[in-house]
């Protein structure tokens, strides 16, 4: 393919799935800025509520691709043992983006102020759990999917505080957009979720952010562009066009100067349907822990892929790291790391380079 040859996608009309999260930004920005159109694609975006639904719709062929949690393609066999389809990714859209929030009530019981960092909160939680009478209703913390970066980060935080995530409390799964409501109702005592659901709980006085996950496990792959293997085999040029458009959107978002505009676009009713004021803090690396605390700087709260960095490269090493963390609580499948297709990422870079 030479620079003069335009890309002709096999399938120009596409449907992509996403969830109501700040880091769905690359899909929304690519659409709003006409980046899909630049590569011959017309893309419809469809918002889903839960990761399980998004996963099943993608596998069931209702959509062409999705912004998906990075560990999902690596652990499909564990989630759906009877499924013969496989998922793959050739682009990590973003790293980081999550935080751990405890209910204001639990936080107060721990005797902490919002200024205390994650380590102090973890130790206080461990001490609190030791003080509790045996047989008391266990504390419930929520994550967004069994094999999510959130589960890995939450378990890591608990373990490094001396808490056994399997014995000392309960971890359950809830859709991201239900977290704040469930925290308010007292169904759960805290959660690990992507933005803006930590900031919103803090802004409404319902929760206190005790740890930004990028401070626990830096530069952890968060969202990937996922498709099924069979879809990729049928539509290799479409997939390349899609990755090229999204890598350009990510590169645009990587520039923090652009993010104010991004917050306004994302907030719109047809996309996330939220207040721009809830979306802007994390995009601007500002962490409002809760209470009267002034915002603190949290550099790298969202790291979007960029043609000049390695953030978007789905390398075998990154796959192995994620699988290693999953393996601490669930057996993994041999060869699972093959879902991360570094070769497809390289193909995207080469393609964009030739088009310059």
């Amino acid at each position: 393919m030479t620079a003069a040859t335009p890309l002709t996608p096999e399938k120009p009309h596409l449907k992509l799935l996403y969830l109501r999260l700040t880091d769905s930004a690359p899909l929304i920005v690519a659409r709003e800025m006409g980046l899909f159109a630049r590569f011959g694609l017309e893309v419809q975006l469809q918002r889903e509520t839960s990761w399980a639904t998004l996963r099943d719709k993608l596998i069931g062929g209702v959509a062409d691709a999705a912004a998906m949690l990075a560990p999902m393609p690596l652990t499909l066999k564990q989630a759906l043992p009877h499924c013969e389809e496989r998922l793959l990714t050739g682009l990590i859209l973003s790293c980081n983006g999550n935080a751990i929030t405890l209910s204001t009530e639990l936080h107060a019981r721990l005797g902490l102020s919002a200024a205390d960092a994650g380590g102090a909160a973890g130790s206080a939680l461990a001490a609190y759990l030791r003080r509790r009478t045996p047989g008391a209703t266990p504390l419930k913390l929520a994550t967004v999917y069994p094999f999510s970066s959130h589960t890995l980060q939450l378990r890591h935080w608990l373990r490094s505080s001396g808490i056994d995530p399997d014995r000392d409390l309960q971890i359950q799964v809830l859709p991201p957009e239900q977290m704040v409501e469930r925290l308010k109702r007292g169904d759960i005592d805290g959660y690990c979720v992507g933005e803006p659901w930590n900031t919103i709980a803090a802004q409404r006085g319902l929760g206190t952010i005790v740890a930004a996950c990028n401070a626990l496990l830096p530069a952890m792959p968060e969202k990937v562009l996922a498709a099924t293997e069979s879809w990729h085999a049928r539509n290799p040029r479409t997939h390349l066009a899609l990755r090229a458009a999204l890598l350009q959107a990510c590169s645009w978002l990587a520039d923090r100067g652009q993010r104010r505009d991004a917050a306004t676009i994302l907030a719109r009713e047809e996309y996330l349907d939220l207040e721009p004021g809830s979306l802007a803090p994390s995009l601007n690396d500002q962490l409002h822990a809760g209470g009267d605390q002034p915002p603190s700087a949290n550099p790298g709260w969202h790291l979007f892929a960029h043609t000049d960095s390695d953030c978007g490269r789905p390398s075998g090493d990154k796959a192995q790291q994620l699988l290693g963390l999953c393996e601490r609580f669930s057996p993994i499948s041999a060869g699972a790391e093959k879902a991360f297709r570094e070769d497809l990422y390289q193909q995207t870079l080469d393609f964009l380079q030739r088009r310059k």
Partner: protein
Amino acid sequence: MSKPLGIMLVDDQPERAEMVGRQLRAAGYRLLVQLTSAEGLLQHVDAHRPDIVLIDIESPDRDILESLTIINRQNPTPVAMFSARGGSDFISRAVEAGVSAYMAEGMSAERVAPAIEIAMAQFRNFQQLRQSLERTQKQLQERKTIERAKGLLMARKGLDEDAAHRTLRNIAMNSNSTMLAVAEQIINHLQSQP
């Protein structure tokens, strides 16, 4: 044949749940419990030990089942509709119909597939019923609008019913429009006049 499969149904649409439940019982399945929300879902699973849980694919409550199956390693484990035997056609039909299913450890996809087929058929029936109900309501509404326009024409222009009807029909034909659109315009127009 061994003991019939025990099924738990979670559906926030009571009419649809009724339809699915009736067909499953008619086919010889044991309907253990029918829930309209995930309230107490874990306790119900624990108490009833279902062979299959059937749930709307759009239901956010599915995540609670996933945490049960994967994190806590209890029965049931997912997921029947992704059966090797059924292949991708079975999967896309289930997703299309909006059914997702979780099955107990050790259960074979072959044994649960017929129950899922029943649920799929009823989900599709329910969808069609709802669409036809919406159509009927729309038609009823249209007829009311046309009657109202006729009434206004009769009162304001001193026409009898036949003449009012002919007027509406002629305007519609001449302006290449529908009776409904014309009726709406006439209502707007006559209502804005004292």
